[in-house]
């Protein structure tokens, strides 16, 4: 099977390419990228005039919820949501039930993904058994089984000695640890950011310092051990400053940011909407501005959604009892095109890089570029498409988004994995 994508604007940051060109795909791989490739060369020709052809987007922070929470999401529904959102690969976090802290769970997820997955699935293994924060999981076997990173995401490993050992132990595997940076003493009982809004609402807040303290600690541990530490869902200006300083000193630290921390602030909580409740919480306007700057200048390496599906019943009750997290796969790309790229706050090529080349490099994943021989994973964007976020139409099993009803210009047009179209 071969496919020729003609006349699209090809943006491939890894190869410094941004030009109207054709992409020829054969055998599931990129064959050639160039001007005026002969249509006769391909079995199928796709006219991408007016569209933007990118390396397939990779979301390194997704909760697929399977096994154990299939009422929220499954590998099948979560990867359909990914494809609909323009993602060709996702990394799934370990807080399933049972926890992905041993190879049989990793094998199960990979087997499910092989049969039912619509996009590529890379599991992330737990650092500690049962996410208990007390004993290391069998990390070598998890790595051998295909885990691309290790994280207790959702919980912070409060024991610095244990986390240090995890970093040392995983050094030979070339897979980073991913930190959920949150001092759990400072965050106890909190449902939102600590600030003027939490004060007015009388809702317990978590100060930015709860994140900053752990980012500082993990940077110091990365320095001590030589390990690569990746900070999940950076949300504070202070954490940005710490990561920037650490990078300047050559520490192996990387970071991601979610679309919602770029686009929303703590003001969204004012109506007690549980879809504005996530961890880390929505922060101040200043934090959001600093995060965007850091994404543009590369202090933050990539965008990840922290796609966290929950059933309606887990989100409809009292604010302080509602579950943390929102779905993100199906809204991320459109929202960032509309709210960040269109007004000129984020260059298109930078966004594409932070969604493809940079996450692939960060975790050593295949793809992320369009050089000949690369996997034929592509995301094609329609920058002019006008649509409205309608949670009822999500591929995800869950609907928990604060973006319902938002008008958006720009969205994924086709998602291609291994040369096959998985969404259009």
């Amino acid at each position, binding site marked *: 099977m071969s496919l020729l994508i003609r006349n699209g604007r090809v943006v491939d940051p890894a190869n410094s390419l941004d030009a109207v060109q054709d992409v020829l795909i054969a055998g599931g791989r990129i064959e050639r990228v160039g001007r005026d490739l002969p249509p006769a060369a391909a079995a199928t020709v796709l006219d991408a005039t007016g569209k933007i052809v990118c390396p397939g987007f990779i979301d390194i922070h997704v909760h697929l919820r399977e096994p154990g929470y299939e009422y929220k999401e499954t590998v099948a529904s979560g990867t359909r949501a990914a494809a609909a959102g323009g993602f060709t690969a996702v990394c799934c976090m370990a807080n399933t039930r049972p926890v992905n802290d041993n190879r049989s769970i990793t094998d199960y997820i990979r087997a499910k993904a092989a049969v039912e997955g619509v996009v590529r699935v890379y599991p992330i293994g737990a650092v500690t058994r049962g996410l208990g924060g007390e004993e290391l999981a069998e990390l070598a076997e998890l790595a051998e089984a295909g885990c691309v990173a290790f994280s207790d995401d959702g919980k912070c490993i409060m024991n610095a000695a244990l986390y240090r050992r995890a970093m040392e132990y995983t050094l030979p595997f070339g897979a980073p640890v991913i930190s959920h940076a949150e001092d759990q003493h400072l965050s106890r009982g909190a449902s939102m950011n600590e600030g*003027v809004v*939490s004060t007015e609402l*009388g*809702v317990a807040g978590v100060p930015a310092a709860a994140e900053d303290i752990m980012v500082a600690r993990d940077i110091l541990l990365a320095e001590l051990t030589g390990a690569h530490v990746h900070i999940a869902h950076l949300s504070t200006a202070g954490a940005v400053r710490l990561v920037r300083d650490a990078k300047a000193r050559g520490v192996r630290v990387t970071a991601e940011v979610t679309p919602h921390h770029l686009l929303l602030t703590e003001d969204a909580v004012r109506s007690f909407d549980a879809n504005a409740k996530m961890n880390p919480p929505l922060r101040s306007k200043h934090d959001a501005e600093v995060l965007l700057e850091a994404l543009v200048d590369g202090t933050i390496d990539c965008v990840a959604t922290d796609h966290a599906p929950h059933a309606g019943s887990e989100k409809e*009750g009292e*604010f*302080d009892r509602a579950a943390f997290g929102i779905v993100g796969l199906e809204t991320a790309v459109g929202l960032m095109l509309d709210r960040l790229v269109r007004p000129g706050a984020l260059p298109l090529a930078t966004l594409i890089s932070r969604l493809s080349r940079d996450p692939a490099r960060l975790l050593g994943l295949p793809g992320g570029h369009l050089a000949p021989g690369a996997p034929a994973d592509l995301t094609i964007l329609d920058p002019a498409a006008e649509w409205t976020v309608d949670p009822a139409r999500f591929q995800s099993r869950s609907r928990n988004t604060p973006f319902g009803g938002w008008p958006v210009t720009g969205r994924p047009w086709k998602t291609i994995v291994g040369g096959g179209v998985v969404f259009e």
Partner: protein
Amino acid sequence: MGWTRKDLLAMRDLDASEILLLVDTAATLQEIAGREIKKVPALRGKTIVNLFYENSTRTRTSFEIAGKWLSADVVNFSAGGSSASKGESFIDTAKNIAAMSPDVVVVRHSSAGAAELLARNLSCSIVNAGDGAHEHPTQALLDLLTIREHKGHFEGLSVAIVGDIAHSRVARSNIHGMRKLGMTVTVAGPPTVIPPFVQEMGVKVAYRLEDAIRDVDVIMMLRLQHERMTNGLIPSLREYSRYWGLTLDKLQAQARPDVLIMHPGPVNRGIELSPEVADGPYSVILDQVTKGVAVRMAVLFLLAGSKGAEQA
């Protein structure tokens, strides 16, 4: 201006004219308490459900009496010994109660936003009788009525609110109400119970009781919850009482002779208030309770009564 809202959720939502309408209405309804037959037909045929998810004697009783004096049918639902103790969710319970067509649901809940949640989901009127540390609008209204009865006006008065501001819905509702009516507010307490950025709500902050109570017209003392100690916010009740308890000595040394002492109750005697102060000549604490019934009558009447009056 008449009353147009479906619900009473928060003082933050109201403008000064709405607050004054509520206070004025309550002032006229006060005389019912002095009648031999304490009953007017204003809410005859209306059903009020008191949905209380948190213990409360005073507020629930006050709403119940208010509803009954207005001739409404009042039903009390408390979470203990109900479907809530069988694991039914709050929102499910509320929807079930709404399916029985009440006109007003009065809700008390430990979660901030609980009243907003019901207002969004139910078509009947919702009265917030206290939601977590968020708001307690009828308490603020009765405090305002008490202040006006004693001082004659609002504009230019100064108030000190003393105690655990961070966890106090009474403080929040009063701050909003008092600021909108042109009063100046100082909040005071150990820094661990003063919430961050509270100045942005338009108040001053004092970290010494003496500074807070000097020259103010009203001192409102808040109840100190005992669990604040175990949460590490204060070292001991003894120390709190020594530095933050209002005694007659401190009062006479620092405060104006015509100061009003208020407290939303129940009072921890000997902790935030010494008995001589709680029961002394400056105290209007029981007057607040009396005014509470009038304020709740006004709220219920404005929410449920006007529609009926138009139809009749």
